Each structure stands twice: as C-alpha cells, then as structure tokens.
C-alpha cells in the first residue's frame, strides 16, 4: 500500500475513533456522574444513606467493570439492536463503549466526590441547603478538578477499548491497525496507526491536564493561572473549547455519514479483510456499476459477528466462511443462513523453517495450528491425512485435540489463526491458512511442505445470505459477478494461494 491508499483509511479510522470515543465519553459523563454521586450519597453517614440502594448500585457497577470489553461488546448485541436498531458499525460500537465507560467513570466520580471535605457538606447544610444544593453547589464544583482528571483517564481507556470495535465493524484506528497492519501485514499502516494513537492519547492527556491545572490553581496558593492576564486566559480557554467542540462535531459527522450508508438499492456484504473483503471490493469498484448494483463492504475482524449481522438484517450477505463453519453456526445459533455460490478454496498447508519435507517431522517435534473450531479440525485432518497423527474413528470436521487417538509423539500448539505464520520461528512446523500464509510473505504453492487438495475439499468459501433472500435478483447478480472471469483473474493475481472454485453450492 502506498501513502495515497493509506491516507483515506487512516483519516476514516481517526474519524471513527473520535466519533466512538467522543460519544461514549459524553454518555459516560451523563450516566457516570449520577451513579458516582449516588454511590457516595447513599453510603453510611451520608445524606441519602440507604444500604440497599448503595449495595445494588455498587454491584451493578462492579459487574460492568469486571467484564472484559470484548465480551461485553458481543454480549450486548441484542441490547444495542433494541436501543439503536443496529448492532454493528459505529453506532453498534458506541453503545457497548458507553456501557463499559459508565461504571468505569462512576467509580472515578465516586472517589473524587468522596474526597470532598465533609465539613463543606456540613457548612452547606448548616446554611439551610438541601441535598440537591449540597451536590450542585459543593460536591460537584469542589470535585471538578478530580472529575476532569477522571474523565481524561476514561477517554484514554476508551481509546484503548475502541481498538476492539473492529469485531462489530465499528472501525476506528485500532481496527485499521488490525485489518491492515496485522492481518494484511502492512507494516507502514501499523506504524502510522500506532503513531496516530500515541498522538491522540497524548493530545487528550494534555487537554485534560490543562483543565485540571486550570481548575485546581484556584485551590492552591500559587494560583499562577489567576495571575495570568485575562486575555491569555480567555485565549487559552477558547482554543481548548474549540478543540473539544471540534472533536465532538467530527464525531457527530462520523455518525451522520454512517447513517447514509444503508440506502435500499445497496447490498451490504460483511467480510473478513483478506482475501474476502478485497475480493468484494474489487467487484464493488470494478464490476458492480455496469451490472446496476451498488455494493458496500463491511469488514469484520471477528468470525461470529458477520453471521449475526446477517441473521438480524444488519447486512444483506456475507463472504468469509466455508460451508462447515456455516452449518456449525446455524446449528448452534438456530439461524437459517444459506450458501449461494462457492467462490474459492484457500488450502491450508503445513509450513516449516527447519525441515524440507513432511516425512522429517515426527516424535518430539512441536507443531502450531489454528485454535478456532473449524480450522483446528481442518488442521487435524490434514495431519491425519499425512499420517503424522491418528484421529479416532468417525471424527467429523469439527475434530479437536480430544479426538486424537495417537499423537505420534508430536506436541500440538493451538494458536490464534493469524498467529501461526508468526510462530514459525518458534516451532518445528506450523499449519497456516492460505490467506495468512500469503500475508506473511509465503508462497503456498512453493513454500508449503504439503497443501490441502482442492478437489472434493469441503472448505469452499461461499457467499451466504438469509434463506428468504436466496432468490433475490440482486443477490443472484452479485453471485454471478463474484463467479466471473474478471474476478477469477483478480484472485489469481492478488491471491495466488487461493483456488477459485466457482458455482452454486448444493
């Protein structure tokens, strides 16, 4: 990728990160401040003392704090949909980000408010103030510097969380880093996103620190800020405010542009970045227009979400999986997704840096293999075919380590699929998916010790739709485009490991 290709991706990513984090922070403030204040007010010896409410809020906050963000995000799918009408994209990411940030910020608010001298509360009560007065005239204004410091921490944490938004197609800089830098091995993109994230976090911290200093200068004897000329103070405040408002506006624009994407004639296809996303992009950019179609690609870095998004109508089709995987999903989730056309097989292969032939592998050697259900099964069957291990009789495509009858003295190391080529230095051999092998700079046909056969291979990657859309003319047309000669040429050139296997499925 050259700079002119990278730049729009980075800008979009930055844009999406600011939008996600901006909105989630705003909601975190709206939700976290009341919760944090209530946690203090309902505590023992406080004006609204109520052990039950205090414990309930405390528990809810703790549950929110304890869930890993990625789990929370995937668990909230139904809630997000009910709330916003979609569980994917920018909007789909903002809801879980906000939900995770509210309890995080609430605890920081609690700490900040608790630190306010109890004497001040007493003073306000003594002058006839109500609890509301205590909160709005004493607790919150006095805690303001700590609240701003807490908000800064929250925003920085949210920037970190937002990197996981790719799982729901939320985009953002972290997602760009994963999709391009990690999965497509674009080192330049990786570096650029990291630099941008570092800059972003530092800018946020600087702005936060500035406000904290400004606010707390009043409470210290030095009060340098107050001694500065009024004009300087006005200017600095104005610049900071414009920066903040600008960031939020950019975020809002990001949301608006998000809203434009789903017009009716457009087919939205969920895909994992390589090669699927790139193939759909090729069709969308080069072939769709002449065929009277409008195709949008929504890239996901997760294998569950694209099917969920298809099942609940957030996307119209997806292209990332093979039939065994789809069958497994349908069975487990009780969905009715069907394959339309087959597009390619990406043969999985055994690679090694230390041996030149499969026969050299044997007892005492360590082999890395993918750890997701289908790829693990696929890898185990390949090892079985090569006689390196023996699977139990009647083991299906979903073979796992438990189905091994005889491991031939090998140590098998399941890793995240994308990690297997990176592990080549550390193990004697690794079983690597075609797309990741290409990404890692390997040439499957040349470098693999052995490759899966294409003929009779059940792992054909397909275009899947909802059952009722199977005969939709637009879907049919998209299927034809994906099965066209032009696409075949593109695939053979761009992804030499893949083997086009066109035609309707079943």
């Amino acid at each position, binding site marked *: 990728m050259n700079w002119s290709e990278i730049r729009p991706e980075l800008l979009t990513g930055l844009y999406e990160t600011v939008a996600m984090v901006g909105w989630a922070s705003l909601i975190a403030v709206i939700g976290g401040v009341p919760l944090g204040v209530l946690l203090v007010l309902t505590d023992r010896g406080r004006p609204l003392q109520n052990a039950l409410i205090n414990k309930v809020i405390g528990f809810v906050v703790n549950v929110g704090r304890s869930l890993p963000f990625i789990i929370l995000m995937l668990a909230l799918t139904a809630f997000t949909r009910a709330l916003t009408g979609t569980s994917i994209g920018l909007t789909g990411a903002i809801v879980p980000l906000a939900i995770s940030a509210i309890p995080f910020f609430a605890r920081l608010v609690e700490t900040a408010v608790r630190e306010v001298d109890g004497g001040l509360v007493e*003073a306000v009560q003594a002058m006839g103030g109500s609890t509301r007065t205590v909160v709005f005239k004493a607790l919150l204004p006095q805690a303001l510097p700590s609240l701003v410091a807490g908000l800064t921490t929250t925003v920085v944490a949210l920037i970190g969380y937002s990197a996981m938004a790719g799982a729901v197609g939320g985009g953002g800089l972290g997602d760009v880093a994963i999709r391009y830098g990690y999965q497509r091995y674009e080192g330049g993109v990786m570096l650029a996103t990291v630099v941008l994230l570092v800059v972003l976090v530092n800018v946020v911290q600087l702005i936060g620190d500035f406000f904290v200093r400004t606010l707390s200068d009043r409470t210290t004897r030095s009060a340098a800020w107050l001694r500065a000329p009024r004009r300087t103070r006005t200017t600095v405040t104005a610049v900071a405010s414009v920066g903040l408002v600008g960031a939020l506006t950019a975020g809002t624009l990001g949301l608006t542009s998000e809203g434009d994407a789903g017009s009716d004639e457009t087919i939205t296809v969920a895909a994992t970045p390589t090669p699927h996303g790139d193939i759909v992009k090729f069709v969308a950019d080069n072939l769709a227009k002449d065929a009277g179609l409008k195709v949008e690609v929504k890239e996901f870095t997760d294998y569950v979400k694209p099917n969920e998004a298809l099942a609940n109508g957030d996307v119209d089709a997806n292209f990332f999986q093979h039939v065994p995987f789809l069958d497994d999903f349908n069975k487990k989730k009780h969905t009715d997704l069907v394959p339309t056309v087959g597009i390619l097989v990406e043969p999985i292969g055994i690679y090694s840096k230390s041996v030149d032939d499969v026969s050299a592998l044997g007892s005492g050697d360590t082999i890395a293999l993918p750890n997701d259900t289908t790829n693990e099964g696929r890898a185990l069957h390949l090892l079985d075919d090569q006689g390196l291990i023996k699977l139990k009789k009647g083991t299906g495509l979903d073979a796992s380590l438990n189905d091994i009858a005889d491991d031939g003295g090998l140590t098998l190391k399941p890793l995240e699929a994308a990690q297997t080529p990176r592990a080549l230095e550390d193990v004697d051999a690794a079983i690597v998916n075609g797309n990741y092998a290409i990404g890692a700079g390997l040439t499957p046909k040349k470098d693999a010790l052995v490759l899966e056969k294409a003929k009779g291979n059940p792992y054909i990657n397909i275009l899947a739709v909802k059952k009722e859309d199977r005969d939709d003319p637009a879907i049919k047309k998209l299927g034809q485009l994906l099965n066209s000669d032009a696409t075949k040429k593109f695939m053979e050139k761009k992804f030499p490991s893949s083997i086009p296997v066109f035609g309707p499925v079943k």
Partner: protein
Amino acid sequence: MITTKGLTKVYRTRDREVTALDGVDLHVREGEVHGVVGQSGAGKSTLIRAVNLLEVPTSGTVTVDGTDLTALAGNGKRAGAELRKARARIGMVFQHFNLLSARTVQDNVELPLEILGHSGAERSRKALELLDLVGLADKAKAYPAQLSGGQKQRVGIARALAGDPKVLLSDEATSALDPETTRSILQLLRDLNRDLGLTVLLITHEMDVVKAVCDSASLMKNGKITESGALSDLLATPGSEIAAELFPLTGDPLGAPDRTVVDITFLGENTGQPVISHLARTYNIDVSILGAAMDTVGGKQVGRMRIELPGPYEENVVPIGFLREQGLQIEIVGAADAVKDTQLVAGVAQ
C-alpha cells in the same frame, strides 16, 4: 434564645453504643455570648450540631428563638424545607472554616443567599456589605487559598451572617489560629454581639476564649453539663471548676497541719480594696501569699489569691469571717480536702 431540654444523642455501631449527649439542659439568653467548655470527647461538638439539627438528637428538644426545631425535623437524615428555613436563620462558623475553595470570597459569602433565593444584584450588595463589616472588602475577588487563616475565618463569619441570623454557632472557631489572630477574631465576635445583638453559642477547649468573650459558660463532661451560669456567678461559686480553670492558682494547697490555706476571689469594686493589709493589721497575723492573679473576665476585673494563715482552721474563724464580711468569695482549701477525705473513707467503708 437557645434552650435544650433533656437532649440525648446515642450513636449505635454494630457492637456498642456511645452516649455523646446525656440529658443536656442548656439555656442561652438573648444577646449573650455563651461558651461551652470541656475536653475533647466531652460531647461539645455533638451539642453544637444538635442545636441546628445537623445531628438529630435521639431524644430531647431544641428550641431556638421560640421555634422547636426538633419538631421540624423529620425522622430521616434528610432535612425538610421547614427545618432548612430555620437553619438559614442560624449562622455557623467552623474550626476549619469550610470555605468552598472553588469559589471566590464573595461567592462564598453569597452561597447562603443563593440558597435563600436572593437575586444576583441583591446577593452581591449584601455580600460586599458583610465583607466590609468583617474588614475584607478588598478581598472579594480572591480565592480562599490566597487568604491567611484569620482572613478565612472572617469570610466564614461574613458567610454565617448572610442569612441575618439572630444566633451564631461557633464550633472551635479559633482553635486553628495563632494567639494573635485568635484575639482579633474573638474581638470581632464580641463586636458583632454588641452591634447586632447577636446571640453567640461557642464551643471551645480553650479557657482563654471564655475569659475573652463569654458572658456565661457551661462545662461539659461525659455528655453532661456539670455546671453552668454567668461567669461572675461561677467565680463566686465555691468549688466551681470553671472558676478554677479560669483562674488557676499556683502554690501548694496542702500546707503544714498547723496552717490554714484560703482562696479569695475579688469581684468588681472589691478588687480595688487593700483587704489583705487590712486583715494583717486588724488581727495582727502574718499572711503569706502563695499565689495571686488579676484579670478581666467577661469585661469585669477579677482577682484571685491563695493565702496561708498560721494556725489551724479553728484559730482562724474570726479573720476568715472578717474576709467574708468584706464581700469576698472565700474558700478553705485544706478544709475542703478534709471533707473529701472523710467521704472517701465512708465510700470505702460501704
């Protein structure tokens, strides 16, 4: 002006009860400065907070300016509108000032007025007037952090006066200040008491504060008031601990068995009289002075003296009678001890 009847406060923790107030009857007259003294833990702090119901008493009543505040308080921790309105008419100043550091001096003084719902212009006018009253007109725009301790307490006093209170509660207002500043703050309280007719209830652990500003005082011990009254009356009361604390006399009270130790208190015009030389000349006895002090208490001259007369008490009945005739407060130190000893023996015998 302030009356408490049978005021009791019991703190219950999981495994024990602490009685902070144990049936306190306190009476503060309109326009006087009343000091409650006692050691820390005696219940002073709980008492002053019970007066404006910051501490809701377990039982008993509090009446301020004819209003029964305990009747206004609900049974929960939250104060109802009626009680809040009543509180607004009771000023309070605190040991650690309790100013809002995020607000300017003027805004701090305006806070009670905001709560009372005054308009902006009205608040500003009143705040500046009060700041002028406490001598801080030039610090209106400063933040509390830029002030000295004494200045902060002046702001605290200005703020306490914002609701035009008839009663000012002072919770160890000078305990965090140096002696010099303490004097000037006490002087301010005294002036406000005189000029505005403000009734002041203050709690303190420093006798000097009582000596400097109070008209009357109470002593608290273990949640009870053990003595109470106008300072001049207390000084005239034999065995008054407040009087003894106000005027600690040095000199060994346990003289030889054939000697009589007498504490004499001079009040008002008596202080000018040459009583001792008169005594010596009239009865031709040698008087040794063990200790003596002269001071101003509650604006009046007071003197205390500890003298020793030769011979046991029986031989000195006539000279002591002479001192009593002069209108002096007389206390026989050795005799009192003798009585105590008898009681002690009796107690053990039981």
